């Protein structure tokens, strides 16, 4: 592990594909910043390649993807795979949005660390990131 631990946690908050529901993503961007993290919000209409490119450029510790349009099964594993291909195995990938319970095991198997559904207290997400970042 080369990164120093006193550096601020750097999070890329990403909106995949054509989904326009960004209330949760923007809210979390603000909450992460208040929790002392450095946040980069990608805005809408991202491809997996674009998200990973941002993660590389920003030297991110965490990628958080918010999906409410049903693209999670395609998009989340693809981001994990591209991160690995670029040597960023240590980046923590978390996801949230409208994600049926039965899809969660497959996403975790693919390397997504955690999925947060609607109604999750934001503190729980902040705590999870702090406890699991830069562990790999």
């Amino acid at each position, binding site marked *: 592990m080369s990164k120093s631990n006193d550096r601020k946690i750097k999070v890329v908050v990403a909106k*995949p594909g*054509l989904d326009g529901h960004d209330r949760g993503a*923007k809210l979390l961007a*603000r909450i992460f910043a208040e929790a002392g993290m450095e946040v980069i*919000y990608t805005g809408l209409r991202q491809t997996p390649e674009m998200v990973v490119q941002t993660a590389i450029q920003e030297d991110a510790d965490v990628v958080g993807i918010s999906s409410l349009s*049903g693209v999670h099964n395609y998009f989340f594993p693809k981001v994990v795979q591209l991160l690995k291909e670029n040597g960023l195995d240590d980046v923590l990938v978390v996801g949230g949005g409208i994600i049926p319970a039965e899809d969660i095991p497959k996403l975790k198997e693919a390397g997504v660390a955690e999925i947060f559904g*609607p109604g999750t207290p934001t503190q729980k997400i902040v705590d999870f990131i702090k406890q699991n970042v830069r562990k790999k």
Partner: protein
Amino acid sequence: MFDKEKIKAIKERIKQWEGSTLKRVLDRFPERKKKFTTISGTEVNRLYTPVDVEDFDYDEKLGFPGEYPFTRGVQPTMYRGRLWTMRQYAGFGTAEETNKRFKYLLEQGQTGLSVAFHLPTQAGYDSDHPLSMGEVGKVGVAVDSIEDMKVLFDGIPLDKVTTSMTINAPATVLLAMYLAIAEEQGVPFEKVGGTVQNDVLKEIICRGQYIFPPQPTMRLTVDLIEYCYKHVPRWNTISISGYHIREAGATAAQEMAFTIADGIAYVQACIDRGLAVDSFAPRLSFFFNAFTNVLEEVAKFRAGRRYWARVMKERFGAKNPKSMMMRYHVQTGGVTLTAQQPLNNIVRVALQAYATALGGAQSLHTNSYDEALCLPTEQAVTVALRTQQIVAEESGATETVDPLAGSYYVEAMTDTIEAQIDDYIKKIDELGGTLKAIELGYIQKEIQESAYRFQKEIESGERIYVGINKYVMEEPPLTNILKVDPRIGEMQIERLKKLRAQRDQKRWKEALDHLREVSRSDENVMPAVIEAVKARATVGEICDVWRDVYGEYRPKEFV
């Protein structure tokens, strides 16, 4: 409404009551909270009396249903004459699957159709575009060309059913397809009825399905409005939408205010085009949200109707009463649904539908209880439709017009919300108008601020949400959920390949070339779009012409 002497006497009595009866109880039993607020954060008093509406002028504030300022409703008999249109937003997978769901809903007593298109169609991309990966058929039906649209409306008579289409930046394209199909069915344009959302400003503010920069996208909006008032007189040319503004976090007053601000921008754009206000304004329609706080919602609807009527009459000089009517569709609040204990959502939706009925809407979509988890199953959709049928047939809300008028609380809240709307409209005018306020991020930031405040209230426990921060319980996940066939992406790409290979290449190319030419001129684009869709040009190809001519919108993010 009350004479001065009477008000004076009531004020005296309030003082007495506060010092005696009330005080005795408060001393022994303090109230549950220091401050009571609506879900929008507006403070609510303990008691409302004639004092709260002491300057109330009945004629000025309420009038009569079907008459200016339409506070009491846009029709004189309201639901005694005809119930609202029950219109469930539906669409998923292929055109075949959605056509089946449409027919099912019509058989169950639904009275109008409402099409949900998948996101690629809404963003003007074909199903084989890289940004469409994983999205095809997911949150709506995949429509790439008129061939899909034909399947979608197969066996549905377009002179009998009205159809609402949630389509904005590419609204002209989907309307063109609909009109072309009506023509094939032998239905003349004058008999075709329905709505396109066509509200591009709220896409930029909060919904995210924008394509082109504000000016050219507004030009397409106005082209559609102008074309329909000349050729498709029964078409609602725009559905100016507060729904998504509310979903993004706005309060009730913000929802109404920002929607009206968008409305003002559209009316001004049409007037700038040279259209007379009374020619197009009667076909403008609106779309709002309904949350669970019934009385605040009713006040919001009444305040909105009154404010819009004044805007049209005083600001734009409309003479035709129809131009002053705020006619609107409502959808119950998607964001109010919980993934936790999903059956509770049926109760929320029932209250929201009740608020909608008491508020005087023209049509309604009731959400399904499973929508915080997935697209609704047929069973969940049926319960949602039955919910509004129960409100319509059993609740009594439909038996008299504007039943809550004259309630001290509802009238005071209506006034409060109207004043909040007015503050926002003045502020937006000061900033230089709606487009400027959007460009500055003012509207977006106001909405985000409200979303943040609400989240903090939930997390601090200041505001209770059942199943989220109180009455929480462990439960197994919902298993009966709707899944879209994952092969649909490939199926749709196959269809596109076939279409591109089989269409008349010469006609297709000429149609797109002509569209490009017209789009650069001041001529109305609609006839050229109709020819293009008939020539089997796809949604993506037509939007690509405009991307080329007009450029693409790149939003600034205000986080």
